[in-house]
């Protein structure tokens, strides 16, 4: 039996207006800037549940995340996924977080040798649907559908192809072979795209459609040159999203372009943008990206998300969080296709709840928009 009381339907209604993956646009809500901040790990902490449980039991994860979002009054429902997805499907092994780890992590990557990459065959949609990762995704999606009813919007989890390649091969080999055996890495990335599209197709077959949530910290300016970024990251991301859209996914796309993108963020101008796309470019070197620059390039095409630093919400005072959130809301809220206040990355699980409250308060106090 659930430990929680029923979700407040007024809150559901307001979130649906402000943050609907089928309409990331200020004109849809017309009242204020939307805001989100919660994560599975933080929700677990908030409710005093060990963190591994929200990953081991996706139904519980979705339930707690929704309840945490309602508790804070943020404008988001629940997306269950994590940064070690689709590893077990190819005989890799993941571990659940213990006392300190934030999320599941990879204990054994599926591939070790060039022959492993050459030989392996991508699982088809049917096999993916029956696999260990999708079994958890189904539980999460079914729970969300049950709890959200008519407000439910299905999601998929297909992170950036270069990031998924890291999960399968490990960072060292992926990066070394990117320079040493580029043809082999291209072969791997082609297979990754095939796999990711099949994962999205599985959700589309069951629900008719789904939003595309993709992101990663790995294909960033700290790791790859702009030339490599274009060749090994952007090209495959573009192909993956185009094929997912052709397969019936979308129009909701959320690009979480995490990490330092000081040298390559403009390359993302080439990625598909639908009528309902939101882009979040997190860092410029070690500082949060100045979103005025991002709005100039992407603001007429899609909604913009960002960009309160995660270390501020973890270590700052409520006043500091409030002031930074206020500054950003006032600076960015008139972005033509909408602005959504978020953190630079996932919220640390031990964040003081009062700091999330400060973030939301700043939006309520300063995020008002003119009536559409």
């Amino acid at each position, binding site marked *: 039996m659930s430990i929680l009381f029923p979700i407040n339907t007024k809150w559901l209604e307001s979130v649906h207006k402000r943050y609907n993956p089928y309409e990331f646009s200020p004109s849809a809500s017309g009242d204020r800037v939307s805001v989100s901040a919660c994560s599975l790990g933080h929700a677990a902490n908030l409710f005093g549940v060990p963190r591994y449980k929200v990953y081991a039991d996706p139904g519980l994860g979705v339930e707690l995340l929704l309840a945490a979002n309602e508790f804070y009054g943020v404008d988001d429902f629940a997306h269950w996924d994590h940064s070690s997805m689709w590893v077990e499907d190819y005989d890799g092994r993941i571990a659940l977080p213990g006392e300190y*780890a934030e999320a599941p992590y990879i204990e054994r990557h599926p591939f070790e040798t060039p022959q492993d990459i050459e030989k392996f065959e991508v699982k088809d949609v049917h096999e993916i649907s029956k696999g260990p990762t999708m079994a958890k995704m189904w539980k999460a999606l079914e729970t969300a559908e049950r709890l959200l009813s008519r407000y439910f919007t299905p999601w998929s989890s297909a992170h950036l192809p270069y990031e998924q390649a890291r999960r399968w091969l490990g960072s060292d080999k992926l*990066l070394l072979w990117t320079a040493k055996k580029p043809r082999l890495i291209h072969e791997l990335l082609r297979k990754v795209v095939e796999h990711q599209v099949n994962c999205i197709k599985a959700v589309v077959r069951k629900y008719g459609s789904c939003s595309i949530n993709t992101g990663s910290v790995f294909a960033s300016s700290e790791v790859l040159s702009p030339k490599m970024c274009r060749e090994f990251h952007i090209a495959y991301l573009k192909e993956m999203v185009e094929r997912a859209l052709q397969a019936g996914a979308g129009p909701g796309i959320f690009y979480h372009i995490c990490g330092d993108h000081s040298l390559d963020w403009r390359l993302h101008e080439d990625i598909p943008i639908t009528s309902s796309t939101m882009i979040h470019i997190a860092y410029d070197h*070690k500082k949060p990206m100045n979103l005025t620059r991002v709005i100039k390039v992407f603001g007429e095409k899609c909604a913009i998300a960002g960009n309160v630093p995660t270390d501020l919400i973890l270590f700052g005072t409520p006043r500091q969080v409030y002031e930074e959130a206020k500054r950003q809301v006032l600076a960015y809220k008139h972005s033509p296709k909408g602005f959504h206040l978020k953190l630079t990355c996932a919220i640390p699980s031990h964040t003081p709840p009062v700091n999330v409250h400060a973030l939301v308060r700043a939006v309520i106090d300063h995020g008002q928009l003119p009536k559409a």
Partner: protein
Amino acid sequence: MQMKGRVVAGLKNSVTKGDVDSCKAYAEKAIVLEIDAYEAIMTGCAEGMRVVGEKYQRREYFIPELLLSAEAMNAAMDILRPYVKETSDESVAPKVVLGVVEGDIHDIGKKIVRIIFEANRFKVFDLGKNVPLEMFVNKAKETGADVIGLSTFITTTLPMTKLLIDQLKKEGIRGKVKVILGGAAASRIFAEKIGADAYAEDAIEGVKKIKNLLKGR
């Protein structure tokens, strides 16, 4: 003499280009010509890696190129190392215990730091990733380390760095070992706040900071 210079320069260039085969060939040539192996490593391989580190810092090279150069350097070192004579210089090399704190499994940055530190003749004890605090403390005691280098990529594990400093104090060795922080989540301000001795944005800066910390030792 000219030949020696050519071999050492060849080693340096091969490391810089990340050319494994050429590195091996020059290392073998150095042995045949009875060039001092330690000198070949220091003025050839390590010097090449220093150039690579600078290129990385200037963002002319990125991690794939850096790993390729490290592979080339290691190939040459495998050939040269058995011929290195014990030198007095080795005994004064800074001893650094290195690791990614518990809860964090991102270790590519730490690996880069190790490569650059070793190229600068630091004696590195690499504990890997997801390392419990007591392992840092025990290794520092066991090796008589001068420095503990902590890396954390994610914000959530930052508090672990403060816990380590507290633990070093409890064990009574804080005065003997310097603590330097790195990794995407760390910052100079945070390092100051928790009482670390230094923060380095990258491996090259780490080398400079450690040399500074240990000046006059």
